[in-house]
Structures are given as C-alpha cells and as structure tokens.
C-alpha cells in the first residue's frame, strides 16, 4: 500500500513538469511557424545559428566574446541585403547535434553552420542555394610527391578521423592506401606532422582551418567529393527562402561574397570552396 502511494505522489510531481513541457513545445511551434519576413520587418532583429568551434567558419573570439568567421560574415551580408543596413543581427552558437532542434523550436531563424545539403536533412528543413563548395580533400606537407588523391597508391598511408564518412570516401577514392583512423582532427593533424602518414583527409573546410594555422602544409588536388553547404531554414518559409537566394545572388554580383571569401581564405593555397567562379 505504502509503495503504491509513493508511486502516485511521484506521478503527481511529474504533472507540472509535463504541462510545462507541453506549453514550451507549443510556444516553439508558434515562433517557428511565424513568417520570418514579417516578424523581422516589425522587430528589426534576426537570429542566426552559427558554429562557435570551427576555425575560419565560426569561431568564438575569446577576447571580444564574439563569434567570427566566414559563416558569420555571410549571415550578416545576407541579413543586410534583405532587411537593410540597420537590421540587428544576433548569433547563437550551435553544434551539429543541436542545430536542427534549435531551428525547429524557433530559437534561431536560420542556420549558417557548415551544414551539408543532404536528402535526409531536406525532409526536415529547407535549404538555400549553395553558399560554399564543401567536399572532401587531402592535405600534405609542402614539397610532398602526392599531388592529388590519385597519388595515394600502395605503400602510402593516409590519416582520417574515426567514425566520419570521409574514411569510407577515401577507401573508395584510393583503395590501395592504408587508412589510419584517429579520434579527432587535432590528433590526426598531430600524427600527420610527426610523420605517421603521407596525407590527411577530411572536409576541405576543416583542412583550410588546419593549413591556415601551419603554412608547412597545403591542400592538394581539390575536392574529390561534393558536399556543398547551404543555409538551413524552417519549412513553410517560402518568402524567406526566396529572399535568401536572391540575396546570395546579389552579394555575389556586387563583390561582397568575393570580399568575404578573400578575407577568410585569401592566403590559403589550393582553395576552391568559392561558388562565385
């Protein structure tokens, strides 16, 4: 009897929590379904989700406390193109795991967060046109005999990152090479530096970040897969989507896109991520 009573008291305690959850999810839906164009015209404020841990694309500057990078500048340029110079642009840091829920809950209006356009994601959200030509590439030490992924023949070793698609892709593109898998990009790059492999493979965005830090290494042979980045927004925001695509075209035409690309990738040899060429 006692036990039964206890269970019931516990269940009663759950009730407020449950109702809170229902209310919160309800709110989220309302915001996400609201027309972004109308709301921003009214409040003059827009919120983007960006990465805060990815060099060159979105990285938290510890001194200023602001997120800086290619994605951030693209988001700013597009917002100004659509809503005028005076619009207030907010940034919320997201990760690969949190970005879709944050967008669907309406915490952010859109995602410029190194997100590849994939059919699975397109079921959940809408994507803009490509704003960055991402794909898989390789980096080697300067002066290496390896000029592209084709030079990874028998007897060579390439370093990849555990659990990423890039390992499967490199096995297809260079079946004779031996793949060593390390746990993350920093570890993999350290192993490459100490001569454990002849090349390292990952997304070009990550590799540009690594070589910008160490000029003794460079990206060679361009991308050998196509995994382009798009801006993600909620479904049912047709007007917003059209405006973003138009703005992307406009900033490419007036040179803003080129300026942003030069700012972040200008000194990287072998860069081929720009969509405006």
């Amino acid at each position, binding site marked *: 009897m006692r036990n039964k009573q206890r269970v019931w008291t516990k269940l009663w305690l759950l009730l407020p929590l449950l109702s809170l959850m229902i209310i919160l999810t309800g709110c989220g839906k309302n915001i996400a379904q609201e027309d972004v164009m109308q709301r921003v015209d009214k409040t003059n404020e827009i919120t983007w989700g960006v990465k805060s841990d990815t060099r060159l694309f979105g990285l938290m500057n510890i001194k200023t406390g602001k997120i800086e990078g290619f994605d951030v500048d693209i988001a700013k340029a597009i917002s100004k193109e659509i809503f005028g110079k005076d619009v207030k642009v907010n940034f919320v840091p997201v990760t690969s795991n949190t970005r879709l829920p944050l967008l669907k809950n309406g915490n952010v209006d859109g995602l410029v967060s190194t997100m590849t356009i994939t059919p699975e994601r397109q079921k959940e959200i809408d994507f803009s046109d490509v704003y960055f030509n991402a794909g898989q590439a390789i980096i080697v030490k300067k002066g290496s005999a390896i000029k592209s992924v084709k030079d990874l023949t028998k007897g060579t070793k390439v370093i990849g990152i*555990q*659990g990423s698609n890039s390992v499967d892709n490199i096995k297809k593109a260079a079946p004779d090479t031996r793949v060593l*898998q*390390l746990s993350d990009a920093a570890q993999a790059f*350290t192993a490459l530096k100490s*001569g*454990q492999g002849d090349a390292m493979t990952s997304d070009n965005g990550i590799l540009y970040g690594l070589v910008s830090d160490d000029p003794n290494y460079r990206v060679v042979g361009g991308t050998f897969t196509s995994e382009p980045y798009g801006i993600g927004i909620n479904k049912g925001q047709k007007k917003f989507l059209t405006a973003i695509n138009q703005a992307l075209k406009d900033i490419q035409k007036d040179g803003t896109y080129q300026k942003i690309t030069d700012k972040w990738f200008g000194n990287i040899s072998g860069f081929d991520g720009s969509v405006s060429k």
Partner: protein
Amino acid sequence: MISILTNNWSSLMEGVKYTIESSLIALIGSLILGVIFAMLEISPNKTVHIIGRTYVEIFRNIPLLVVAMFFYIVMPQFIPGLDGFTAGTIGLTIYTSAFIAETVRAGIESVDVGQMEAARSNGMTYLQSMRFIVLPQAIKIVVPPLGNQFVNLVKNSSVLAFLAGFDLMYQGNLIASTTFKTTDTYLAVGLLYLIMTMPLSYLMRYLEKRWSKNPQA
C-alpha cells in the same frame, strides 16, 4: 551481439592478433627491463641506485597514454618510420617495466638479509649470491604480484587504439562508430579481452601453487 561478432569477425581477429603480439613483446621486454632496473635499484652503489630509482619513479608516475603518445608523436622525429603499433608497444614495455621493477625489488628485499650475508661469507661474489641464493627465493614471492602486472599489461595494450595501432580496442572503436551498435560492440570486445586474460590468470595461479608446494622446482 552475435551479429557484431559474425559480421566483423575478421577485423576483430586482426585486432586480437595485434593485441596478443604487442602484449607478448611487451611482456618479455618489460620482464627483462624490470629485473635489470630492480637490480640497479637495490645496488649498494649510490650512482647505480639513483639511476634505477629515477627510471622507476619517472615511468611509474606518468600515465601510460602520455608515455605512448610521446613515442608516437615526438620520437618519429629522431627515429623515422616509428608507427603506432611499435610506439605503443615500446611505451607499454617501458611503463610496465617500472611496475615490474618495483615488484621484483620488493621481492628481493623481502628475502632475509642473512641469506645474502651467509652467501657472501661462504665466498660467493655479490652477483653469485644474487643469482643462486637470493633470486630463486625472491621469484616465489614475486610470482603472484607479477601475474597481476601481466594481466594489467594485456588490458593496458588497449592504449594502441589511440595511436592507430590496429589492436582489438581500435577495431572495436571503428566497428562502433560505423555500425552505431555501441553497446554490443564493446560487450564483444570485452568478452574477447576476457578470453585472452583469463588463461593468463589461471597460468599464474597454477605456477604459484606449484612453486609453493615444491620449493625445489
């Protein structure tokens, strides 16, 4: 879990092969190094003693992963071609040898000082009395704790996974990250480690019993 084992049998077996290989090399290497450094530690010569003591204290008090990483990342600059497997095995050998040195030293010191004195007064040299009088008695005392070290060594060989050393843990990580069946994969990996370490435990227990019954053997 059965499907994980059958679908990935060849890569798991490759992992087992590398784990056993690394463990065997490290076991023999660390036993030799460990005994040498134990002898240095108990040496009456001050300089020699300090050398042994320093070695043991340094490698006993640094995490194995750091030692192994040192050989993987730093040493290739001086020794080109030092791959993850070799670097990891060297790290494992050195790390374990520090513990074995401590175990052996404790064993030797537990033999009554009178034994050494008696041997010396019978005209044996220091090394002779060590070899024929003290060490045979010390070995019996040392076998059970040494067994512990060897079992630990097999388990610690999983450090190779961080250096792309192709061992069982490395293969397990790859299978888990591609199939997303994390629980089943690590259960299977744990089972395979158990199959490798259990016979070693039993062997050590058997030796312990045999030597305590028959002191002359």
